[in-house]
């Protein structure tokens, strides 16, 4: 509640700051400070919630509990990290720097709604608030044709999926006579399932699958991620995705959890397809940025595991996965923006030219590949464990083994970057000098990745 208001107000302040301050650097510093303020507000709200218990403001439209606030806090923390790491690069995208930061605040507002919605209307509003600023950010590099293409493509496809989402909501309302997800669970329970409700669930699954780029609704992802200015790709591929996943999980666990026998197999096939397409296509990419786009599809496949398993390990898993994946990917993009040539050859010999950059990139890639002692391993571990625990009912052990084989494939394309950096010779060109500040931020990010891998309980502790 407090955080939702705060992020809106701070976003507006940010926008007006653009009118008054001309200095880009000052704006970026202001944004960093405001994000830390927002993080403070989140922590304060969390501590209030621990003391007073969950709340249901706006006539029960939202239900704010400890888990959703903890998720908000973590995502705000990741956003603050993102701003601190990428602030300089965001300044280079265009002239309306203040607006970019303001839009990121608004995206977070949507994310807060998605983590605590209690009715389908709020889900819809949350998704729209989160998506629309992204359409703008995708096209922020106005003179670049690819950026405009990305924006248009994303907008058209996004609008289309929103239509499907609304259709699904309508059908579900017809079946349950309520938008309230907790009530819906009660009404829909029973021996026979209303076909309207089943159709509604499938529509919503497709629409949310689009948002999290699950196959076969993933086709927009590579082009959009590739065309969008790199700093914004980093945000879209990480925090936004984690938010959409949390919404996905909340709906399917709270409202449709008891109906899981009806949708679990469909989602399992979507998961398998996502893993297969994401991993196999990533192998063939020549540009690291495009590889990361496909890898984000592959990682989405793993996050879908958390939705598949209706238990508490899954909720912990999605939060841990969201954080581990976001931090590692933001870090990797932080390295990527320093490199001029995004192809694999552009990384040749980086270890010699800038050992620190190569080292942190290696840790981020280890985490994405799921090597132990990095966050990625623990995250994968949690979501897979969630499905294994549920295996007696769902019979999805084949999917776990399939996913692990796909993880082995992912080693191929992640390690190609490591091979280029360490074992090939070349003169990589950097876009700008790597300052002490950049180095510090990258090392901090790297330390967080390892911290998640060694002590995951620090990040799942608040999940009830």
């Amino acid at each position: 509640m407090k955080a939702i208001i705060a992020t809106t107000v701070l976003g507006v302040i940010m926008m007006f700051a653009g009118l008054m301050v001309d200095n880009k650097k000052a704006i970026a510093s202001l944004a960093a400070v405001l994000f830390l303020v927002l993080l403070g507000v989140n922590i304060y709200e969390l501590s209030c919630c621990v003391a007073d218990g969950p709340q249901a403001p706006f006539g029960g439209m939202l239900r704010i509990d400890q888990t959703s606030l903890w998720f908000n806090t973590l995502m705000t923390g990741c956003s603050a990290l993102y701003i601190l790491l990428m602030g300089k690069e965001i300044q280079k995208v265009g002239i309306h720097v203040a607006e970019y930061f303001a839009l990121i605040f608004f995206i977070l507002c949507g994310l807060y709604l998605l983590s605590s919605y209690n009715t389908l209307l709020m889900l819809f509003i949350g998704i729209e608030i989160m998506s629309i600023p992204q359409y703008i950010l995708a096209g922020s590099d106005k003179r670049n044709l690819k950026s405009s293409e990305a924006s248009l493509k994303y907008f058209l496809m996004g609008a289309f999926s929103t239509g499907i989402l609304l259709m699904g909501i309508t059908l579900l309302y017809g079946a349950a006579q309520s938008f309230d997800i907790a009530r819906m669970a009660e009404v829909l329970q029973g021996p026979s399932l209303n076909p309207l409700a089943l159709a509604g669930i499938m529509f919503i699954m497709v629409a949310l699958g689009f948002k999290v780029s699950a196959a076969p609704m993933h086709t927009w992802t590579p082009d959009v991620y590739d065309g969008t200015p790199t700093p914004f790709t980093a945000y879209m591929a990480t925090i936004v995705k984690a938010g959409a996943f949390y919404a996905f999980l909340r709906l399917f666990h709270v409202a449709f959890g008891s109906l899981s026998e009806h949708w679990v197999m469909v989602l399992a096939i979507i998961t398998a397809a996502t893993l297969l397409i994401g991993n196999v296509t990533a192998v063939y990419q020549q540009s690291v940025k495009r590889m990361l786009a496909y890898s984000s599809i592959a990682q989405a496949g793993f996050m879908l595991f958390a939705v598949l398993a209706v238990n508490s390990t899954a909720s912990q898993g999605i939060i841990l996965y969201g954080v581990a994946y976001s931090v590692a990917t933001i870090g990797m993009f932080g390295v990527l923006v320093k490199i001029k040539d995004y192809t694999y050859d552009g990384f040749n010999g980086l270890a010699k030219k800038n050992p620190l950059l190569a080292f942190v990139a290696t840790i981020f890639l280890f985490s994405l590949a799921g090597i132990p002692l990095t966050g990625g391993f623990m995250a994968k571990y949690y979501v897979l464990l969630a499905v294994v625990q549920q295996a007696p009912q769902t019979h999805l052990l084949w999917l776990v083994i399939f996913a692990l084989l796909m993880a082995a494939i992912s080693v191929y394309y992640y390690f190609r970057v490591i091979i280029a950096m360490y074992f090939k010779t070349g003169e990589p060109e950097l876009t700008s000098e790597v300052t002490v500040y950049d180095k510090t931020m990258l090392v901090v990010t790297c330390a967080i990745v390892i911290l998640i891998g060694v002590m995951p309980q620090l990040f799942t502790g608040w999940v009830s």
Partner: protein
Amino acid sequence: MMLCLLILLPVIFSIFTFSFAKSNNGAKSMALISTIVTLAVSAYVSAANYTAPMVFDCEWIPLMGTRFSLLADGMSSMLCLLTGIVMMVVMIAQINKEVEKPNSFYGFLLLSQAGLMGVFLASDALLFYVFWELALIPVYFLCSQWGGEKRIAVTFKFFVYTFVGSLMMLAGLLYLGSQSQVPSYAWKDIVHVGASLPADTQQWVFWLLFIAFAIKMPVFPFHTWQPDTYEQSPTPVTIVLSALMVKMGLFAVLRWLLPVVPQGVEYWSETVVILSVIGIVYASCLAIVQTDIKRLIAYSSIAHMGLMCAVAFSHNSIGMHGIMVQMFNHGINITGMWLIVSMIENRWGTRDMTKLGGMAITAPAMAVALVVISLANIALPLTNGFVGEFMLFNGLFAGTIANHMTLMVIAGLGVILGAIYTLNMIQKTAYGEATTMVVAKDLSVNEYLGLAIIICIILVLGFYPKPLLDLTSGIAMMIGV
């Protein structure tokens, strides 16, 4: 606490080496000191076994039911001791060698040592998995950076191969860990849960775990990464791979497979033994036709590991005891073999047997060492290899699987074929005319020292294997029932 030291010492020294030891001499001495100290600690840990095995246990991730728990029973401490000795000998042999970027080279070597110690000591399944991977990563960098011409592709194949295996193992461990009421990965809980699973479940869990171990050992037909990787790696890394890392696979079979899914093991024993025996004969035959000494030893190693694996699935306690002893002996012997190969390569610039010859004339001491170590490798009586191999065949002979007689006879062919390729190798390299014009120096002081340690162990354990047998007898009886 001593057990933590075994893992922490190499890690701390490797961090120091990475950051400060930019010169060759600095890095070498740092690494040597580290390995000597670690060896001392592992000797202490092994000695403690005669009274009570050391344990260490503290909380790690309570939510997942995984603990940071280490246990040094007979088998673990024996393998830690082996790791300590081999790493020290490697560092001694490196004294007169120069490498590029010495700080990373020795840093990674020490890190791999830490990973290996962790694998041998872990008594929590998840901890075991973590170390299993951590041992692999430094080796990946070592091979890719300092290896031969085709190193990048070969190492990558090796890495992906073993990584697929590890992930299968992870799936198996996940399944086992999630089966108990309270999530727990402690060894005894995993054993308890695994053994109480229905037989058909055990049968497929068996393969999830066994594939990882089979790739690591390697057992036919999962061995294809091995000769290439051994050939392309720099010698110190080859030693780590062949003397220590393959033991990880065998160790894992004994600790994390046989007791965990007993009914699965019983069902698949015959298959595994047949595969191993095929591997013995196949690898021995391939060893005979090799001209590159490194590849020859690589294939001979597959044959030796095949025998140990076959016995591991024969359900016999003497055989188990033999495996323990032979794990140690094979580690020592093959280290000696690789050291000599690298000396040959340094002096004559080739590993091709057809171009070598006359070592006994130009470098007599080296030739003597080669002969002694090779004979130990084919298990001549009064060398350490004899004791272990005798027990292994005894175990296979007395085992309970079907057709064990036939299988033992076929496996026995491996000994004969082993003699053929080893003696052939000695003949071509040590004797005959000196075919190259290179005048080679005999052993330098540090090489003397390294080989002397190896040969001492070979002879002492050949005459008096009792300490080694005593150390491992308890655990062998336990697994071999």
